């Protein structure tokens, strides 16, 4: 039977394998290659090879941008996971017939177009909106300061767009967790906090690590949110790539930046590979 599988396996693997090779792996390698090409006068790919596209990474402005990309992504990821934790707990403990309905409530807003959800915040954080006026009235916001067009706005809106992606894997893990273990820990003398930290968190660690990766990695390539609510002080590396591509018309330079972003994205993925191996055996 095994020997017969050869041709069948080949035939069923071929379509998706070739497609992804052609439209994902080859373009990915192409980005790395074109990052080392010169720019021709019209902004396209020149003939010569050069390292000059990476010279921009010596500039302080790019360091600021990369650092901001990292901390906005990390802060958003942290806030998402911290908020998703009690929600996942609640969803896993609530009456069973309520769970599908509550889950649906969590998911439904995110079937609304992504741009529209970001745009909704654009109006809420607007300097003449009710929120800004209310905060000014009670003195929490200065006359000339704005809620919009700063890194804080990028974090809030990013949390809004990514929170469900943190809630779902953490709920899936919490739902499988045996809450009786917490009672056992307390019976053995652990405080509630200790039981939570030493039993519950390790119990759902797979869900937590999925949530961390699923939010952090796309955040590094964030483009729309900083573009619409970030202003000049809230720009991330994704905006720079788009700017090099659409405004400056410099494809090789945009490739160099994409290559660096690719490295930033792959780093946590490679680090994540190891823990995946020690999956506990399911009974």
């Amino acid at each position, binding site marked *: 039977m095994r020997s017969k599988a050869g041709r*069948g*396996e080949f035939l*069923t*693997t071929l379509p*998706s*394998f070739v*497609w*992804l*090779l052609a*439209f*994902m792996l080859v*373009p*990915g390698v*192409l*980005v790395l290659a*074109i990052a080392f090409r010169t720019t021709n006068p019209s902004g396209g790919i020149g003939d010569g090879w050069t390292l000059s596209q990476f010279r921009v990474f010596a500039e302080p402005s790019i360091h600021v941008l990369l650092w901001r990309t990292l901390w906005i992504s990390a802060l958003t990821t942290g806030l998402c996971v911290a*908020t998703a934790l*009690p*929600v996942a*707990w609640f*969803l896993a403990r609530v009456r069973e017939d309520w769970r599908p309905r509550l889950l*649906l*409530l*969590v998911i*439904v*807003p995110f*079937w*609304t*177009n*992504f*741009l*529209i959800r970001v*745009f*909704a*915040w*654009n*109006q*809420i954080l*607007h300097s*003449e*909106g*009710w929120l800004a006026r209310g905060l000014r009235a009670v003195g929490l916001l200065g006359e000339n300061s704005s809620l919009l067009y700063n890194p804080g706005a990028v974090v809030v809106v990013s949390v*809004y767009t990514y929170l469900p992606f943190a809630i779902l894997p953490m709920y899936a893990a919490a739902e499988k967790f045996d809450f009786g273990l917490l009672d056992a820990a307390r019976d053995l003398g652990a405080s*509630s906090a200790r039981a939570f930290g030493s039993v519950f968190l390790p119990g759902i660690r797979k869900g937590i690590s999925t949530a961390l990766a*699923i939010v952090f*990695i*796309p955040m590094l*390539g*964030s*483009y*729309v949110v900083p573009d*619409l609510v970030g202003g000049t002080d809230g720009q991330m590396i994704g905006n720079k790539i*788009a700017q090099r*591509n659409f405004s400056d018309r410099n*494809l090789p330079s*945009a490739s160099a930046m994409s290559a660096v*972003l*690719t490295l930033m*994205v792959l780093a946590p*993925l490679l680090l994540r590979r190891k823990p995946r191996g020690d999956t506990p055996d399911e009974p």
Partner: protein
Amino acid sequence: MKRSRIPLLTTLLVLAFFYLPIGMLVLHSFNESRFGTRWQGFTMKWYERLLERGDLWEALVHSLQVAVVASIGSMVLGTFAAFALQRHRTRLQTTHRMLITLPLVLPDILMGMSLLLLFVALGVQLSLWTVGIAHITFCVSYVTLVVQSRLQDFDFQMVDAARDLGATRWEAFAKVVLPLLAPGILAGGLLAFTLSVDDFVVTFFVKGPGADTLPVVIYSMIKKSREFPVVNAMSTLLIAITFVAVWGSQRLTTGRDS
């Protein structure tokens, strides 16, 4: 032993956080005010304005065309991929699995950028077709995952049985595997459809001139022409469609279960 109130309160706050912006959007679509900051009376004029916009309808048609191509293409590729991944445990499948997983984690901007470079390097004219190819590429992985979950408790001996009874490889696949997988393939296709309609970033990089999809037009309305109230009105319509669709599919599934 007292139970903490924190989980309940956080969940309620999170739900408010999720729905408040959407509620504001709907409210403002009926607001007379041009900038949607203060309430200046009820109006339907933004909806009338919306109906006059021919470019939006054209963009909607583009979006639907791409979504149909993307969901059919990814359904075909994803079904074969899921079958291969689930049935065989070889070195080839380890690489295959890596290829399938990559688009799930790759940021949109990198996928858009790399596909743009591919098309430029090959001298391919950007059009609605390049958008379709890009969408198939990021949809395949999702369809594969959905179909794979359906294959989890699939008995592959049925394929062997069909082959023993004289079916060719294709007959076994078409007459035994496909009918059993149909619900999973359809669910994957629907997911691909929604992902395709929603996509902005990848589309923005690989679209040709005049091949604007709905999100691309919405983006330029927000960014360039700043027609906020019209965007509000359109958003409200889209949100209404989403909610009705969810409500309908809920009714269908609960009706089947009982």
